[in-house]
């Protein structure tokens, strides 16, 4: 009897431990099936944008045509020691200049202005007159322009050859491009995402689509960055060329003033030389020198202003060309992107159609 009781007690304890010994344990499961959607692997890449650099043309320039006659006259007078040494033609030409001032110019104020300038002209006053910011006496300049445009004296004065300026372009606000087409594409994609299945197959198709689309976006962004960088570089280059050309124009202007100064000084020295034996001829030479100096300065100013305007227009043309090139490139990039995304959408539709479970059983 005691043995039986002990046996049952041991059995109950064993059953007890059968239940108590181990904690509960969760079950596990195999890894989910990995859908591999290869449909998007053949998606072609967007072509890398390659822009042909626009040809850079130089700005048209105004050219000063310097007459030969004045130099010949000065060469003649510089070495003259008496009237016999002076070429008769030089005397006649200079006399015509004085006659023009005294007879053709009816305005006495202008005559007086020329006369005063002739009386007071010195190397120092010439240097001061030929400073970049010096003011030109309008009365004297009017007489000088009249002389230069006269038939008899026209050959004594410089001429300005002005080429045709290109039409200026309106750059607006630097032609900023707002990438409207791209926003439109993203809106379309958002609409497309609405119609999708659920489930691992559809998720895999959508993931593959997202990867392919991400690649396209990256390629598009790279192309857009390239285009934007090219545009910015071209604008910077155009601005750099503007600065450089302006500097060249200024240098040329200064060189023109310097050359004019040297010529006028040689005139004054010739006038001083011939004054010893022919004061009248010396005054005629100073008359010519005053008119020549004012007209040449007037021509140089016009040339400089023309060149600055030409340079500015050339810069605007270069920026406009850069804008056109950039906008065309962006349009091309967006067109390629749109076509590729449309293709992706079709591929996704096919992939999702294949994700419809055509048979299932549990």
């Amino acid at each position, binding site marked *: 009897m005691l043995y039986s009781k002990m046996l049952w007690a041991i059995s109950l304890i064993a059953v007890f431990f059968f239940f108590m010994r181990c904690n509960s344990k969760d079950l596990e499961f195999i890894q989910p099936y990995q859908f591999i959607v290869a449909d998007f692997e053949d998606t072609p890449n967007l072509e890398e944008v390659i822009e042909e650099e626009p040809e850079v043309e130089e700005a048209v320039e105004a050219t000063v045509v310097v007459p030969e006659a004045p130099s010949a006259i000065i060469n003649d007078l510089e070495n003259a020691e008496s009237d016999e040494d002076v070429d008769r033609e030089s005397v006649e030409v200079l006399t015509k200049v004085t006659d023009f001032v005294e007879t053709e110019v009816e305005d006495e104020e202008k005559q007086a202005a020329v006369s005063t300038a002739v009386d007071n002209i010195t190397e120092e006053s010439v240097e001061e007159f030929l400073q970049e910011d010096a003011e030109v006496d309008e009365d004297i300049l009017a007489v000088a322009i009249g002389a230069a445009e006269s038939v008899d004296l026209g050959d004594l004065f410089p001429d300005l050859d002005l080429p045709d300026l290109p039409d200026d372009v309106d750059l607006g606000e630097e032609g900023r491009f707002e990438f409207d087409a791209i926003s439109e594409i993203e809106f379309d994609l958002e609409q497309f995402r609405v119609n999708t299945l659920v489930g691992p197959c559809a998720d895999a198709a959508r993931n593959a689509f997202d990867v392919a689309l991400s690649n396209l976006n990256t390629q598009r962004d790279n192309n857009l960055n390239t285009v934007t960088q090219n545009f910015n570089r071209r604008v910077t280059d155009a601005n750099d060329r503007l600065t450089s050309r302006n500097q060249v124009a200024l240098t040329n202007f200064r060189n023109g003033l310097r050359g004019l100064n040297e010529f006028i000084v040689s005139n004054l020295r010739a006038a001083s030389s011939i004054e010893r034996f022919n004061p009248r001829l010396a005054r005629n030479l100073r008359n010519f020198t005053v008119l020549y100096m004012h007209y040449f300065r007037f021509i140089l100013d016009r040339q400089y202003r023309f060149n600055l305007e030409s340079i500015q227009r050339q810069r605007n043309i270069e920026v406009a060309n850069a804008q056109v090139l950039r906008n065309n490139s962006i349009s091309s990039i967006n067109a390629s992107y749109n076509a590729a995304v449309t293709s992706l959408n079709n591929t996704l539709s096919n992939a999702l159609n*294949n994700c419809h479970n055509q048979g299932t059983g549990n």
Partner: protein
Amino acid sequence: MKTYNKVLILLACFSLLSTGLTAQVQLSKFGVSLSQWTRNYSEFDERFFFTTPPSEQGGYTASSIMPSIFAEVSIYKGISLEGRIGSWSRTYTDISSFGNLTIQESLKQRVIPASLSVLYNYSFLDNFNAYAGLGVTRYFIQHEVLRLVPDGSGSVAPQEFSGNNYGINYMIGVEYYFNEKIGVGLEGRFHNGAYNKSFVPEFGANSVTRTIDLKGLEIGISLRYRLFSSSSSED
């Protein structure tokens, strides 16, 4: 789980205490049974983990025949302690076709409920005995999972997983004895349990855990051998 443990401890203590005090503990009957256990799922079921899970959760039932063996120990008058172990099996399958791709998945499940229950036996007619009780069940679960992808990659050779969890069962039944030893029984037993399953919902995602119901009504018949009667009688 701790609640079940406490119940087990109480049952064991009660048994041992009864053993010592009454000296009536002895094997009273044993037998075999064949029952139909119909599991009712309130949320997730075994199909949920396939590539194409059901579109709706809950409302699913799974039923199979379950053989069992049991033994009963008389403790005190009509009170006895029953130990029982069965084996319930079912195979869940899924065939999914995506274009040219077909995925066949199957899960062979075996649930082994091992229970320890306290019964109260009551004789109400000659040779008839009724009983009712409750107990703790430990559900041992074995899974064998495979995946076949005939026209593609991704097939998985059969893999086995096992786990267990606790539950409670309630029962009521009647038995009829043809003579002093041999009898048959009709029993209804309700299982109230569940087990946890961890899985990866998407490839590369983190594992999550879902609870699968093991609850449902089991109705069966049994063949019983009685060593002696432990029932209390109308008398």
